[in-house]
């Protein structure tokens, strides 16, 4: 066990002396969180909207002014008829138009119910989904406002009737009520950070010893396999957890991201997750001879893992077969757990199954890696 201390000391010295490594450890989290979280947003503002007000009532004017005040919509020149509005839609001069029918105000007061019609350009399905969701939200607020001002019943009196052309629009699922996409992205980006540290740096570090030939020197020493492996992987396990802490701090400072659940669960899961990822890094290092090879293989797996992780595309929306593949993707579980714990405040019992799966991954990957790692070539 004493030998591990010497390996650790050496590893940390080398990591902190490596001019390529320090920027990766400290700059990568900042870049990923500050740039990627903002760039990878599906949050859409300034949706170009045309309103056909056929009612010209106090209520309809109030609704138009609400749309005008919303940061999500950019009110365009009003059209006189639907043909004109449709032409604008075709020419991409607007993203959607809304028809406020005659008798809108009358119906609302008398019948306690009125309809408006939304027509949305749904070529970009997710954008259309968002536009519809934003408008529905705006209507809901309008309802509450009118209810308090005019003593109308506030429940379900104004419903939108969306009529998307030819392409069906499915709304995305929201994990937070203010439609803040960053809350959804940031936990996933934190996972990416930890994964990259684990998979890239660990495999490259071991392969580097192969490249410079020092691994042979180590293999003729009485060092034990487990001592070597622990000495090599523990630094990256610690750096991975440090990275997560740094990322969470940045996310809290810059995005005020909610951390509803327990940090102990997040870090506990990250600890096990890192074991799995480091095991994978070790496994990659046993089958590659150069840092380039190991980078390439790590990258190959990471791209698949990230695309099938539910970070950008909800897993529920994937085809059945792809969903089945995601079951073998460790990244998927970590993203699930961080989102559940951070945003929903899930307790341990809610993520127990993910813990079990991740422990299994960690065990299998490390077992394979240790079996493959040999001091003596056969």
């Amino acid at each position, binding site marked *: 066990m004493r*030998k591990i201390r010497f390996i650790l000391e050496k590893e940390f010295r*080398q990591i902190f002396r490596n001019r390529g490594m320090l920027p990766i450890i400290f700059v990568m989290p900042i870049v990923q969180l500050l740039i990627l979280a903002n760039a990878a947003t599906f949050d859409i503002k300034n949706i170009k909207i045309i309103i056909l007000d056929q009612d010209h009532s106090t209520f309809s004017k109030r609704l138009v002014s609400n749309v005008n005040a919303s940061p999500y919509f950019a009110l365009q020149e009003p059209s006189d008829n639907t043909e004109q509005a449709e032409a604008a839609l075709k020419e991409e001069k607007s993203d959607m138009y809304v028809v406020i029918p005659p008798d809108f105000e009358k119906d609302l007061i008398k019948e306690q119910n009125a309809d408006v019609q939304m027509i949305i350009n749904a070529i970009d399905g997710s954008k259309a989904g968002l536009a519809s969701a934003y408008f529905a939200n705006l209507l809901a607020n309008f309802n509450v406002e009118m209810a308090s001002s005019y003593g109308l019943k506030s429940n379900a009196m104004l419903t939108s009737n969306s009529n998307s052309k030819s392409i069906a629009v499915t709304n995305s699922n929201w994990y937070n009520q203010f439609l803040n996409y960053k809350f959804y992205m940031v936990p996933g980006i934190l996972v990416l950070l930890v994964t990259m540290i684990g998979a890239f740096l660990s495999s490259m570090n071991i392969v580097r010893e192969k490249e*410079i*030939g020092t691994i042979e*020197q180590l*293999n003729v*020493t*009485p060092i034990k396999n487990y001592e070597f492996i622990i000495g090599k992987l523990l630094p990256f396990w610690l750096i991975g957890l440090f990275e997560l802490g740094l990322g969470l701090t940045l996310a809290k400072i810059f995005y005020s991201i909610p951390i509803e659940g327990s940090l102990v669960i997040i870090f506990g899961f990250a600890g096990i997750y890192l074991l799995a990822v480091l095991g994978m890094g070790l496994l990659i290092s046993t089958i590659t001879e150069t840092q380039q090879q190991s980078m390439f293989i790590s990258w190959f797996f990471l791209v698949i893992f990230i695309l099938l992780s539910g970070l950008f595309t909800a897993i529920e929306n994937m085809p059945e077969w792809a969903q089945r593949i995601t079951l073998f993707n460790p990244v998927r579980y970590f993203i699930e757990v961080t989102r559940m714990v951070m945003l929903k405040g899930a307790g341990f019992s809610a993520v127990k199954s993910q813990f079990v799966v991740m422990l299994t991954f960690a065990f299998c990957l490390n077992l394979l890696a240790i079996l493959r790692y040999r001091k*003596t070539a056969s």
Partner: protein
Amino acid sequence: MNNSENRPAVKVNKLTRQFGDFYAVKEITFEVNKGEIFGFLGANGAGKSTAMRMLTGLLAPSSGEATVAGYDVYKEAEKIKKNIGYMSQRFSLYEDLTVLENIKFYGGIYGLSNQQIKQKSEELVEKLNLHEVSKSLLSGLPLGWKQKLAFSVALLHDPEIIFLDEPTGGVDPVTRRQFWKLIYEASDSGITVFVTTHYMDEAEYCNRISMMVAGEIAALGSPNELKKQYGVDSMDEVFVKIARPSN
């Protein structure tokens, strides 16, 4: 410990290593006596390194027997590793660590106590005259210094045998001479030296040498015996006669 005084340091009997149908090393048999400087010569690809890798536990033999420091290469590889030092043709210290850090690391993984590491570090710095660079990164030192340091580091744990795989590749004649002085010192203190080399003048420094050709030992004896046997004046000519018999 296996401390019978009469036991050879290395005993090899019909040791073989196959890669598919190719015999890298074919049924070699020899003994290395304690305290001897034993040279392993041969052209590139003759099987020198493969043989050495089997003796140091880096490569599993296909068949045959071998004991190193009295331990069996198949069953007691870990015990062998405690009792041998190794320095390979590829430079084996860490360039991004300082002289003292390298010594500390290798001392540590050979299980030396902190006290021993400290003492050995001082001795080494003194002996190799590295006072001024003891805290510099190795990457800044000349190759000759690094190789002398690597040799000394391989002896940190007082091994019974030291294996040197082309230790003087790429250094100037003066440094090579200094290097061989270190080898003689080690040999004088009772350490068995097993060395592979390309340089025929170095072969003259060895007590006994074996010449490998195509995986087999073609000649074995002291430099003088070999020169007499082949009726030539230098090891160079011996080498040419054995390694390129068609010439």
